[in-house]
Structures are given as C-alpha cells and as structure tokens.
C-alpha cells in the first residue's frame, strides 16, 4: 500500500486546544531543561552544605590545576574555584529571576497603562521604549553602569532599564488589540467595570506571550549580568560572580580552569532556561504543533 517517497508537505492541523502544557513536559528538551534547572536549584539552596571550601578563603596553593582536592583548581589567590562557582549560583540565579520579574512587572504595568489609556501616557511611555531600543543592549547597560558607578546593584538596575521595554510593548500591543475584542466589549456591556475587564479578560491572554518572553529573558539576564561583570562594571572582587571570574581567567590565560568552569556554569544555566522556554513556546504556539489531519478535501 505504500508509495514512492513524497515531498515533505504537511497540512498542519489547526489550533490545538490552547494551553496544552501537559504534552510539553514530555519532550526530551523540556526534561533536560528541567533536570538542569533542578540541579542548579539544589545547588543554590544547599551550597553551604555542598561547597567544600569557603569561596573567599585564600590559601597558599596558588594556580593549582584541577585535582581531587580542588575539583576545579584554585585561582590567583589560592581560592577553590569549584566552591566559588557553586556560590556564584547564589548571585546569578536569584538575581536573574528578580530581574525578569521586575522587568515584567514594570513593563507590563507601563505597557498596560499605555495601551489602555492611550494619549499622552502612551506617547511618553512609547518614546521611552524607543530610546532604549535605539541602543544595542550592552552599550546602554554599559553607559548606565558607568554613569552610576560599577557595582552589582547598578548592573542589575542597568539590565532592568534595558529589559522592561520589550514587555511594555508586548503588553501594550495586546491590550490595544484586545480592547477591541468582542468578548471584552461583551463583558463591559454586562456591566463589568473597566478594571475588572482588564484583569479578568485581558490578563490571561497577555500571559502567554509574556511567559515565553520571560523564560527566555531569564537566560538573557544571566548573560547580560555576567557580561557586565566581565567588563568590570558589575560585581566587584572578591565576590564570586561568574562573569568577573571569567574576566580573571582571561588575565591568567594559561590557567584555563579559572575561566572555563565559571563560563560553563553560565552556559548550563542559560541552556536550561532556553530549553524550558523553547518547550514552553512550542506548547503555547499552535502553529508549531505537530497535529497533521487528513483535511476535508
């Protein structure tokens, strides 16, 4: 009953039932992401129990190569790199979460206001986002951190400045398009107040794209923070921040273990977030769904 190989052409089935998250988690990618993220979560929580040494403790064993005593070797002040990498997770991960949550909140509020009220509110907010978008991210972040003074706190602020506009735009666009949507009008006709309409009708629809963006931004936040610290504009020594550790690694180039392992940590965390975000997007975006149906032809 079979035929010669046919050119690949799918009539992709129409919308899946929205929110079929169940199937997403079965994908190998999502699982890998969850495992990785889970491992790091364990590290973040239990690092005082796991890390063999105090991350700030200096010793006389400078620049020693990876060994059983020091899994990742030691750095220029004899500190155990492994412990420093583990402790660094307590900076990068929580900060990244904090950043994204704040950016989403700030952006969503501002974007929601802009979309809902329009007029000069919209103008002001939109011009601000234009401003931010006019610069490649790191230039702007750099400028802000340099102006405010290099510290981890200012780096976080800079990243926040750079991240919020995307959410503002997304939310604004959705609010504006949904404002015209029939079911919102229906809800208001039934007497619901504006605020209720906003919360109950608009919010759930906005959540989807925002969630996808946020999950992927988690990775970006880690990268940007690490990047700023790498440039010396973020965390200052002796804080065991991954980016600044790579920076030190660059200075002592031949001691490859000093820069490689912290960088690997960054990579694995961002990878985990991106795996998760990608699987999430697949689950929420019907067009990449797999269902092929023998359509009515």
């Amino acid at each position, binding site marked *: *009953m*079979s*035929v*010669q*190989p*046919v*050119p*690949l*052409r*799918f*009539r992709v*089935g129409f919308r899946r039932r929205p929110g079929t998250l169940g199937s997403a988690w079965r994908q190998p990618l999502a699982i890998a992401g969850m495992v990785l993220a889970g491992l790091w979560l364990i590290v973040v929580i239990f690092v005082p129990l796991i890390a063999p040494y105090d991350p700030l403790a200096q010793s006389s064993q400078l620049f020693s190569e990876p060994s059983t005593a020091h899994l990742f070797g030691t750095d220029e002040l004899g500190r155990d790199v492994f412990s420093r990498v583990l402790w660094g997770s307590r900076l990068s991960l929580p900060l990244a979460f904090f950043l994204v949550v704040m950016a989403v909140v700030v952006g969503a509020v501002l974007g929601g206001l802009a979309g809902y009220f329009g007029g000069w509110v919209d103008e002001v907010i939109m011009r601000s986002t234009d401003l931010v978008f006019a610069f490649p991210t790191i230039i702007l972040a750099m400028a802000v951190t340099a102006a405010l003074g290099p510290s981890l706190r200012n780096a976080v602020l800079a990243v926040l400045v750079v991240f919020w506009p995307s959410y503002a735009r997304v939310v604004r666009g959705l609010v504006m398009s949904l404002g015209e949507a029939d079911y919102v009008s229906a809800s208001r006709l039934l007497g619901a107040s504006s605020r209720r309409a906003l919360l109950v009708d608009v919010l759930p629809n906005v959540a989807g794209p925002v969630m996808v963006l946020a999950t992927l931004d988690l990775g970006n936040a880690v990268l940007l923070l690490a990047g700023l610290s790498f440039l010396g504009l973020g965390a200052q020594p002796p804080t065991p921040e991954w980016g600044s550790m790579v920076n030190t690694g660059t200075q002592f180039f031949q001691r490859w273990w000093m820069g490689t392992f912290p960088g690997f940590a960054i990579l694995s965390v961002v990878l985990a977030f991106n795996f998760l975000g990608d699987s999430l997007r697949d689950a929420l975006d019907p067009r990449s769904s*797999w*269902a*092929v*149906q*023998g359509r*009515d*032809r």
Partner: protein
Amino acid sequence: MSPLLSVSGLRVRLPTASGPVTVVDGVDYEVERGQVFGIAGESGSGKTISVLALLGLLPSGAEVGGSARFDGKELLTLDRRSLREIRGKEIAMVFQDPMTSLHPMMTIEQQLTEHMRYHLGLDAKHARARAAGLLHEVSIPDPTGALGAYPHQLSGGMRQRIAIAIALACGPRLLIADEPTTALDVTVQAGILRLLDRLRRQSGLAVIMITHDLGVMSSIADWLSVMYAGRIVESGPTGAVLDRPRHPYTAGLLAALPHPEAAEDTPLVSISGAPPNPQARPAGCSFHPRCKHAIESCASEVPDLLQVSDSRRLACPVDPLLVPA
C-alpha cells in the same frame, strides 16, 4: 479508443495525530480525451486528495493504493523523476484561490516561464514571447504589462486566468481544476468557465473539474461523478445525473438547491445530519444514517459502484428510480 486516464481502486490513507485515516476509499473512473469530467462533493469527501494522489503531491507519510493509468503509465508507482516530467507538462493543476496559489513575490512572467524553461528548454526570450501569447489566449488585456506585475496588483479574475495560463503553458493533455471558480465573484465565474470550455475545445484538452457547485457542473461538465465520504456514489453524463439522480445523496443535493421559481414560503430542504468525519465513517454505506431510503443491509454492506445502464454507475442497492421531490 482507450481513456486518457483510468483510475481504479484508488485508496489514500493519511497520517493523523490519532493514527492513519482512510480519506479516499476505493475510487474508479475514466477520463476520455477532450472530456470535461466533473467530480462533485462536499468538504470531507476526499475529492481533492484523490487528485493530489495522481500527481504524487500528498503529504509525506501518506499511503496510496490502487491504480491510476495515464496514457499507459502507472502514475502511482512512478519514480520521482518521471513524475516530475508529468507534472506541469502532461498533467497540470489549477487551484482554488489564486491569491494563495500564485507566489506573492515573483512576477507573473517568472511564474509563467519557470516551468516552461524547465520542461521545454526554452531560453528567456522565447519563454517570454510564449508567455505573452498565453496571456493573450486567456484574455488578459495587457499581456506585456501583466508580465511584469505581481499577483497582488491584479484582480481575482485576472489572477485565476493567469493560473490557468500557467497550467496550460507546457501544453498538458489533462488539466485538473480544483474549485477554480469558488473563490471568485459570481460575475467573474462565468467568464472563467467559458474560457475553460473554449480552451479545451480548441486543443482537445481533458479537464477534471472538481466543485461542490452543481450549477457550475451543469454548465461545463460532460460527465459527472458524485463523491461522498471517500467513494464515488454515482456517475454518468452530467445532464442525465442532474435530471434524474439515482443515488439518494445526489437527489438530496439537488433537492437542497433553492429553486428560483418556487413559492416564497417553500421551506428549504436539506439533508439531515452532516458529512462524516473521515476518521469516523459509518459502517456499511457511509450515507446510510442520513438516507431516507436506507434498508437493513445498508448498515453493514458497503455498496459497490455498479454499472446499472450503459451510461450510469451507481453505488446503491435501493430502488434506483428515484425522482427529485
């Protein structure tokens, strides 16, 4: 003379999220040279899939069975290269919506000439001249101007004429038209049908006309096959079938057509129920749940398409002499 196209026992199964589904369930027909062969049916009847199968244009994972002999060649087992030789050159296709079947970013000239140059080996200059000629044939007012245009700059009727020109570019012997007028205004439809009719009379082109519109069918098709749930239920000369349908489904379709002379308060007749989903077709005759004349065996035995007179085939065991109400 042997028929140009002879299809027998054509079956198509498509992969779906819930397993393979038989979309076309045993189809037999012949198309003679110069004939307009109509296939009528609703959505879900499998009419489009059955013709896509002829050209090997089904989604990957599709399974095809049966036979389709075109000019002596068995299409369903042809190798890829030979199939490519036939597509566009011997058998060509016109799709329903020219806004989506023409490439939005290529000029008309490019779309007209690319397969001409591939199949016929023409150089740019000759292909262009031939393209202009084709546009003239399909009554496009300014052929040279149209060549440089993009699809979005032209009207719907013109786009479909161009699609027809594209199909005819390499001189095929069989044209498959899948709902060619459905996406067009009624006023434009007539023009397209007249065009098709003229062209096939001029060149002896055979046409497979797929449509759900019986009015279109009656004006252009010589022979009519009615498809339901993946099978042909009735087939014969168009006039005869539409005048005196012998299958309950055909009769129902005709009865459902509003009559312009009927009294104002004549109720609209429709066939109760809906066409079955290909994944859940009833046992026995697929139409039996909706059929007023169903007998006991209809629920268990699939009626074969039988020759009931020398120009009529019917797949129904019930009293064949039904007249539309």
